[in-house]
């Protein structure tokens, strides 16, 4: 109630006055605090319960950690930052309701979420309708910044095409060109597999594959089929716990002796759920903590470990970047108005203490997709705390997917 921005009042009044009973709403408690004390409210929606709760929880932790840091650094526009976390329960209806609640009732200045890209997309419909600044930290399907891109929506995690393009040369180099896909049967899986096929065809390879229900936990039938195809490498495109189950059974069946294992996205949360014998394969990490040559990263990781008692994952980094990006956008725009923030963030390069990696990391203006490095490397059993992955190369995001291939035509409201 207290944190109405100028644009917020304007928008709300407009909506309310359209209603027959709009007059009532003006009688609300009109305590206007000094501008400096009024917190900037950020609404964070993630599936904290349900099958995606592990990455969702990490993202949320990262965001909370970032909010503490931002507040220490003077908040946003000199105002303290308040994070309102909502559980989408991995359900679109709930996610959309939470977005409306954060916008209509809590009058948040920005919305973040969701790990589930279907929910992220649905929320983006609400935020663009309500003209609220929206960052998708970790929902991967391409259309969010591709053919369905919206002026108010920015994304931190990679598109599936970026991930696929980054790892393909390594897989071809190490294993060969005959691939077998194990892919979840939903948009994320489809776009990922298409991206892989495109990249593989360029390299002159051949493939076969199986589309599985997203929560599949038994892979024996699929692995039997896969082995019969005699591929050089098995691409495990499943997500979260399903990916873990697939890896375990791959190891149990001793299939590592006959073919390589790899895929696009893998996460620290998942590696830890796999028994050591199954910790293997070539993968992308969308961010990896172990960067000994980057002093600010080493310091950040040490601080994070001290504060949170765990090693930060890519999801933590998503949360971190999401909050800092909002500060950067608002302070460059000198406003919390979504349209000004959106313009401000376009093409903006992240500073070292935010990007936490070498090279230039920026939001591409044409599709609002963050262009970080993709960490390509090999997973192995832990060689020290959190040390499960050895980076072999960094692939530049823009190189992985040029703007022309995204299908995004960014239009701003008149």
């Amino acid at each position, binding site marked *: 109630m207290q944190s109405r921005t100028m644009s917020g009042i304007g928008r709300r009044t407009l909506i309310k006055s359209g209603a*027959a009973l709009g007059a009532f709403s003006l009688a609300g408690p009109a305590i206007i605090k000094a501008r400096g004390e009024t917190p900037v409210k950020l609404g964070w929606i993630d599936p904290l319960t349900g099958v995606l709760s592990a990455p969702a929880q990490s993202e949320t932790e990262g965001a909370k950690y970032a909010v503490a840091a931002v507040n220490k650094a003077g908040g946003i526009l000199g105002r303290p930052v308040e994070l309102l976390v909502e*559980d989408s329960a991995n359900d679109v*209806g709930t996610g959309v309701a939470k977005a409306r609640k954060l916008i209509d009732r809590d009058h948040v200045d920005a919305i973040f979420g969701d790990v589930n890209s279907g929910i992220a*997309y649905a929320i983006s419909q609400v935020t663009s309708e309500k003209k609220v600044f929206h960052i998708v930290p970790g929902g991967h399907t391409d259309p969010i910044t591709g053919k369905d891109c919206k002026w108010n929506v920015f994304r931190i995690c990679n598109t599936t095409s970026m991930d696929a393009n980054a790892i393909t040369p390594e897989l071809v180099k190490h294993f060969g060109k005959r691939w077998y896909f194990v892919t*979840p049967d939903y948009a994320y899986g*489809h776009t990922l597999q298409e991206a892989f096929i495109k990249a593989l065809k360029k390299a002159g390879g051949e493939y076969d594959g199986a589309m599985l229900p997203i929560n599949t936990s038994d892979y024996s039938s699929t692995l039997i089929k896969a082995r019969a195809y005699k591929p050089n490498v098995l691409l495990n495109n499943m997500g979260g716990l399903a990916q873990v189950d697939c890896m375990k059974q791959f190891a149990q069946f001793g299939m590592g002796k006959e073919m390589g294992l790899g895929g696009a996205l893998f996460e620290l949360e998942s590696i830890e759920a796999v028994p050591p014998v199954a910790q293997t394969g070539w993968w992308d990490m969308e961010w990896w903590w172990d960067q000994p040559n980057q002093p600010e990263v080493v310091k950040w990781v040490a601080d994070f470990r001290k504060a949170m008692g765990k090693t930060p994952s890519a999801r933590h980094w998503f949360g971190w970047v999401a909050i800092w990006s909002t500060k950067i956008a608002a302070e460059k725009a000198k406003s919390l108005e979504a349209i000004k923030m959106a313009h401000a963030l376009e093409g903006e390069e992240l500073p070292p203490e935010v990007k936490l990696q070498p090279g230039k990391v920026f939001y591409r203006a044409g599709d609002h997709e963050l262009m970080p490095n993709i960490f390509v490397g090999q997973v192995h059993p832990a060689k020290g705390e959190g040390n499960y992955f050895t980076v072999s190369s960094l692939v530049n995001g823009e190189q992985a997917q040029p703007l022309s291939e995204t299908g995004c035509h960014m239009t701003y409201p008149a």
Partner: protein
Amino acid sequence: MSATTISAAPSRTAKPKLHLLIIWAALLTAPAWMGYIGGYDALASRILVFGLAAMGLNLLLGFTGVMSFGHAAYFGLGAYGAGFVLRYWVHSTPLAILCGILLGTVAGVVFGALMMRRTGMYFAMLTIAFGQICYYVAYSWNSVTGGYDGLRGFQRAPLDLGFTVLNIRDNGVLFYYFVLAIFAVCTALMGLLLRSPLGRTMIAIRENPRRARFLGINVERHILISFAISTFFTSVAGALYALLNNFADPTSLYYVISGNIVIMAVMGGMLNFWGPLLGAAIFVTLQDYISSMTVNWMSWIGIIFVAIVLFFPSGVLGFLRRRSASK
């Protein structure tokens, strides 16, 4: 007085009319006061939608005495039916609702006919299983339903009344009144139904199926009819849900939603016509609040389920009535 069960039968007293006055006054002014109790327009619409779904279910559960734990299927099919029209066919809100109703009700009749030879727990189990069929179809048929990601890329269309256009697309309050109008029509139909011979037959089956059979009432056929009618109203709610979210997704067909609809009916008081609406209001609001306050909301919702079953089996209205009766 234990006149709870005949509240839907012709009433001659003034008291129910007072109830009606309060209910409709509250519903009509909801957008004005929702904000003060921490609500918002979409929450009010959500309550109406689930209230309608629960009242539809309650025709079967409370007034015919037959258990269904699979009504999410018809709710979700209503949503998809509406979504299909807007996504693939024409930009028309009324047509979307009609198609949602058609899809949900046809499925209700077909599944009902397949299930009707079973009673008791096996019937309940079959309702769940048939509901899950719809879930898996929506989930697997990517090219049509959008699969796991849901059916997206549509928006409810403004309502063209001929003389004026109501922009229910962009105006949340206006959309609330649109939902309320449909809700009003549906509840009027339900009220008329329960006062009709068909409604009395349903109540007769609930009260005493054996007696009903020996009054020449074909119990199975009437349960099927009741089932179909109940899926009709639940699919109306589903269609409205799709319009509310501008989205249809498989979760709306999942059995957890069925369970939520059932608990709403029971929580409010399933022997009362308006009980499910009250239950929906309480449940949706509680879920909204608790899930914002704690990530362990599932425990709280679970505890609510258990507490209702063990301590308030006749729901809030039943509980109030008994308290006032014992004074």
